[in-house]
């Protein structure tokens, strides 16, 4: 069987981001393999270890995405395919490009992260599934192969459900699906020699982005930061807090 993880490179959540000329400027920002995609990569490596087959990482993004792809290869994926395109491309358009590569790869199982740490989008897995005519299961917390089908548990708005899915299918990962491994030093050395095939997005005949980002601004709310010491008299501190919420903030 063949397993694919769709990955992306995103800013490290801990690092600062800045805006230049109304657009987010990522120069100087630490970029990492999206932590949600780490679950996807871990899952396809486990599937390969348990059932044999091949674990392939696929991405759509700028050239620098190769760094994140090397991380996935260092974790244990076999090879990578990177569709290169500069600038913002919406997930629906990306899905059309990814579907062309995936149709050729013909995997049985595709995983990707449940939400992206840069665009805060949840769309890529579902849109790619639609482009391929495959089912999608979002926010997967448990996964196993069973008689040529997949059995998965996934989160809904309230609660969760267990589903049986015909393959091939796309799954998006939720935290708790697995515990992603760290790349080992031998893994990192091996990853340098693993194949990454690059394809220019233009060669796939996919149109430009359907969505344009007109303007971006940093949006962090100013907080009052009124902190009361309640280490000695917790009851008095609680009384003061509730009074502030009632009289000053007027929210109680």
């Amino acid at each position, binding site marked *: 069987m063949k397993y694919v993880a769709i990955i992306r490179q995103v800013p490290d959540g801990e690092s600062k981001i800045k805006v230049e000329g109304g657009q987010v400027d990522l120069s100087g920002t630490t970029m990492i393999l999206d932590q949600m995609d780490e679950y996807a990569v871990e899952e396809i490596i486990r599937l390969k270890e348990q059932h044999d087959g091949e674990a392939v990482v696929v991405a759509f993004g700028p050239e620098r995405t190769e760094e994140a792809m090397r991380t996935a290869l260092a974790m244990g994926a076999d090879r990578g395919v990177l569709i290169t395109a500069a600038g913002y491309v919406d997930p629906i358009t990306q899905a059309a490009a990814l579907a062309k590569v995936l149709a050729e790869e013909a995997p049985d199982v595709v995983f990707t992260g449940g939400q992206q740490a840069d665009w805060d989008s949840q769309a890529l897995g579902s849109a790619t*599934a639609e482009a391929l005519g495959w089912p999608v299961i979002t926010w997967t917390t448990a996964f196993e192969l069973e008689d040529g089908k997949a059995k998965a548990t996934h989160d809904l708005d309230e609660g969760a459900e267990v589903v049986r899915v015909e393959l091939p299918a796309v799954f998006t990962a939720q935290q708790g699906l697995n515990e992603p491994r760290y790349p080992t030093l031998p893994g990192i050395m091996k990853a340098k020699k693993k194949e990454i095939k690059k394809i220019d997005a233009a060669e796939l005949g996919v149109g430009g982005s359907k969505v344009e980002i007109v303007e971006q601004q940093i949006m962090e709310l100013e907080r009052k930061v009124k902190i009361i010491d309640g280490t000695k008299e917790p009851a008095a501190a*609680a009384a003061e807090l*509730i009074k502030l919420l009632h009289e000053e903030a007027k929210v109680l």
Partner: protein
Amino acid sequence: MVLVVLDHDGSKLRKSALEGVTRGRKLAEVLGGDVVGLLIGPGADAVAEEAKNYVSKVFTVTGADFETYTAEKWAKAAQAAAAAAGAKAVVAPASRTGRSWTPRLAYKLDAALLEDTLDSWAEGDKVFATRYSFLNRVLEKQAAGLPAVISVKPNTTPLAEPAGAGTVEPLSVELGELERKVEVLEKIVESGGKVSLTEADVVVTGGRGMGSAEAFEMIEEFADLLGGAVGATRAVIDAGWRPYSEQIGQTGKTVQPTIYFALALSGAVQHQAGMNKSKVVVAVNKDPDAPIFKESDYGVVGDVHQVLPAMIEEVKKLKSA
């Protein structure tokens, strides 16, 4: 024509449906035509009696095939309704399920997807939307051509008022091979609470510092007292103290209540992504250096096991006064 997919609980419209109608009306003012609605699944026929007061026509899709949700079936139903209505724009709730089927619909319609939007409007034959990105730290404005599929972030939009009586039209949607590939084996219903987390005005979240599952009884009591909902951090979910559905953060739910209580949690970036747009943030933590204090309006440095019971007593006093 604008189609609004109306979320419901089988007996009445959810708040998000009325937010969607408001968005739909705003788009229709510029794009022209009426606002039509779509109800899918069990109870749709009953809910249509309520829904027809808000839109000129309500499509209903019901039957054995639509007893359980899958992204494939819901996208198919919305596609059928969009075609029947000749809709240029489709509005849907940005719930977890909403965000799983709307990308499929956008792809089917060769439409732009504007996801989890705070506001949306049309100018000429273009649509615009604002939304957060970069773990909720950036506000961005997006533009796209038509057709467009727009999902509405909960609690961002005024609820629509009734506007007279529309009609109800059952729509028959035939499933294809794709829509029969997912079989629901078991529903895991979590008694998450009486108040929907994403719609609650008050959210009380406990972190690892609560120390035990039992300690959350205190949080439940406090949340009940304020008519709020209980949230939890990733660490708490991993410890098995609370269900996944209560997780707040990048990979859980995003909330923006009027007041957010962050109790005995440190405030990792991933957690902040789920709550940093709350109007007022209140933290209690015994560590004065916990990052959450910098992101709070009010805070108490102290042991939550002593401070929270006192807070409960103070709120009771306030309520009886």
